[in-house]
């Protein structure tokens, strides 16, 4: 029926990931001795994978629209620092949560604004943001907290609700919401249009910059949720060291999920499956006894292999098109 919405390539990728995830789950079940532990694995899956999936939902829209955001991890750090400062000031949990999510949302929207106004490529703006936001977080922490020792302790359980008990539900709600929105809203289709051909959008009377800004705005919403869940899961908030390398995990999940790095093609479902795939891979490697040191290397190798294969398959056609 809707074979236009999901190209053969995306369909293949989704099937591959689905099959892969099932296979990995089976492999984990086999490697884990008791049945009880396996249930634990599934239960822990939600909270553990939630930040990556939520951030991935944010990044998917942005990449579909033809841009990228390398600063998502640093945005989470700022949001976390704001959260930590408010906790330190003994604000009640709910306003802290709100402040955390809104900070992340605002910074994402700010990225979009800078790309629009300065006419500098998104990759540069967000690469700069990668460093800049982390520095801002550190400065904020220093300024707001006397004798800041580098880490903020968040002991009370009340503050950890979204990250621990509610993470799975937040993820589910966000994912369902994202899929429904992707299906029934026009904006995601405009992102794909922009990623396909900016020229066609212009000719149709659409404003490419406004479309890109909307991708960052909506992305900010999901990033806010991701920040909330990530930040409330950890015991200590250390602006200098938290979420290091997080953006790479997220980009890996998005690309694995079948989103085209140049824009124009992508899906939320793919991103979620991609994130799950990477998570189950690392879980299986842990249970199979593979040293954690090898894990990062293997994850990187998988991502490179998938991307390399994707690109190589397109290469010949691209070359002919380029020369003509």
């Amino acid at each position: 029926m809707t074979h236009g919405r999901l190209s053969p390539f995306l369909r293949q990728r989704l099937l591959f990931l689905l099959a892969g995830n099932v296979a990995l789950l089976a492999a984990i079940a086999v490697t884990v001795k008791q049945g009880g532990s396996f249930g634990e694995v599934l239960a822990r899956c939600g909270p553990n994978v939630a930040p990556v999936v939520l951030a991935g939902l944010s990044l998917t829209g942005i990449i579909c629209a033809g841009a990228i955001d390398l600063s998502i991890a640093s945005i989470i750090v700022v949001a976390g620092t704001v959260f930590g400062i408010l906790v330190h000031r003994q604000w009640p949990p709910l306003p802290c949560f709100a402040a955390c999510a809104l900070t992340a949302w605002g910074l994402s929207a700010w990225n979009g604004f800078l790309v629009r106004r300065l006419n500098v490529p998104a990759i540069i703006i967000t690469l700069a943001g990668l460093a800049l936001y982390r520095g801002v977080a550190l400065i904020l922490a220093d300024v707001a907290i006397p004798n800041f020792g580098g880490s903020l302790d968040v002991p009370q359980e009340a503050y950890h609700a979204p990250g621990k008990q509610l993470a799975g539900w937040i993820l589910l709600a966000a994912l369902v919401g994202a899929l429904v929105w992707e299906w029934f809203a026009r904006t995601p289709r405009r992102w794909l249009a922009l990623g396909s051909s900016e020229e066609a959008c212009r000719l149709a009377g659409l404003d490419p910059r406004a479309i890109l800004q909307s991708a960052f705005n909506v992305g900010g919403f999901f990033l806010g949720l991701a920040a909330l869940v990530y930040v409330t899961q950890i015991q200590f908030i250390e602006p200098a060291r938290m979420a290091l390398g997080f953006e790479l995990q997220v980009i890996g999940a998005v690309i694995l999920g079948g989103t085209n790095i140049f824009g124009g093609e992508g899906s939320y479902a793919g991103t979620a499956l991609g994130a799950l795939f990477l998570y189950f891979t690392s879980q299986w490697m842990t249970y199979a006894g593979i040293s954690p040191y090898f894990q990062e290397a293997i994850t990187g190798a998988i991502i490179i292999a998938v991307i390399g294969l994707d690109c190589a398959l397109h290469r010949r056609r691209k070359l002919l098109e380029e020369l003509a």
Partner: protein
Amino acid sequence: MAPLLQLRAIEKSFGGTRALHPLTLTLASGEVLGLIGENGAGKSTLIKVLSGVHAPDAGAIEWRGQTVGFHSPHDAMEAGIATIHQELAYCGHLTVAENLFLGEPWPRHRWGGVDWKNLHAEASARLSRCQLDISTHRAFASLSAAQKQEVAIARALARQARLLILDEPTASLSGPEVERLFIQLKRLRAEGVAILYVSHRLEEILKLTDRVAVLRDGELVAAYAVADANVNRMVKDMVGRPLDQVYPRTRHLAQSSGNRCEAALTNAERSTRSAPLLELDSVSRQGMFRDISFTLCPGEIIGLAGLIGAGRSELARAIYGLYPCDSGVMRLRGHSWLPRGPEDSLAAGLVYLPEERKRQGLVPDHPVGDSISIGFSDLLTYWGIIRRRDERTRISAAMRTCDIRASSLTQTIGTLSGGNQQKAILARWLERKPDVIVLDEPTRGVDVGAKAEIHRLIDQLAGNGRAVLLISSDLPEVLGMSDRILVMHEGSITAELHGASMTQENVLLAASGLQSAPI
């Protein structure tokens, strides 16, 4: 009845070049106007002015009785002027329905979500109004070139377009698809839509249009009813000036013997006495060209004529080594030749001047000196370092030989005129003293003076014993410069003309696939 569109004294210049002299043109509703002209005559500039890409420097556009100024292509579309470009801009990953409705409000459910069923229903309705039977659920990129064009036209009509501008619409269409297009256009004409049909294919113009307008060097030199038109008259109006002044070769031959046919034969005889430089024997590549065979001798200029999409540039690229052939044999100087890339060709003394100089030839912000020396500085290196003084001497010599006008060696090549840019790329290769020179549309978008200079250079090359393969869509150029003409149509050679059989009619007929045997 008042004309739908009236252009009064429209002028447009780019830098120092006049693209459109004061041009006055009218178009009525329900009229199909064929716009013809050589390359560089101003057709694409006129289209860009009408479609809102460029604003005219002077003059007025009256549309439906009112003077209008378009600030963007979107303005023109809103006003009712739709342009179907040769290179369609579309969103490949979206469905046909979404492309049809891009930029318009989409049907919504009461609760705010997009009503996909309705969207597809309305899209199907739009398509069926144009008698198109394409599923609106398909991804746009999966449509054939003809289908994409048909949907683009349907889109324009749904936006209440009153003027449809078609730029070389049949370039990538097959015979039956062209027929379908014509039926659709005739139906639109009956509905009162005006059509501006821009094409090189003269027989199509004769078949479809009501009136013909001829552009030459930015001016409208003739406009007449199609009943009064024929191929010869159109070509003559397009070229305008006596052939011998522009094409030195003919003149040289005419002067030397007084009989063009005899002179051509003598020349061919002369060149066949020396061994052929380049031979192609049943060379084919899937989807591009098939069964190509010819020989190219020193001192010979072979013209390769044909319509856009005939496969000439693809053949040239295969000869140059940019892609391999599936079958057949190529021989250079008698030895079997399989270039793995342009480096092999350059080392063997074969060069290729690409078709689109902006996209395939230059880096616009680089200096003209570097753009020229990139072609031969590898011959001047010592341990990888270029000998600067030699380089400068060679560049200056090249600029003098090709008569390139630039303020200095460091002038940015993007700021030179089209003619000088083209000469620069030519100079790049000529400094290597190549034996075989393949030229692809060497005078496209070049002013008359530079054109004559380039022709002089080509003639000199042949005189010095080089072999030239001249690909050109410019009929008079091909006829005037070549010793022999090969005509391609849809990937194969349909005619080989020499001597008395080198006429415009024969070339056009063979290029349109209407006659397969040479006279």
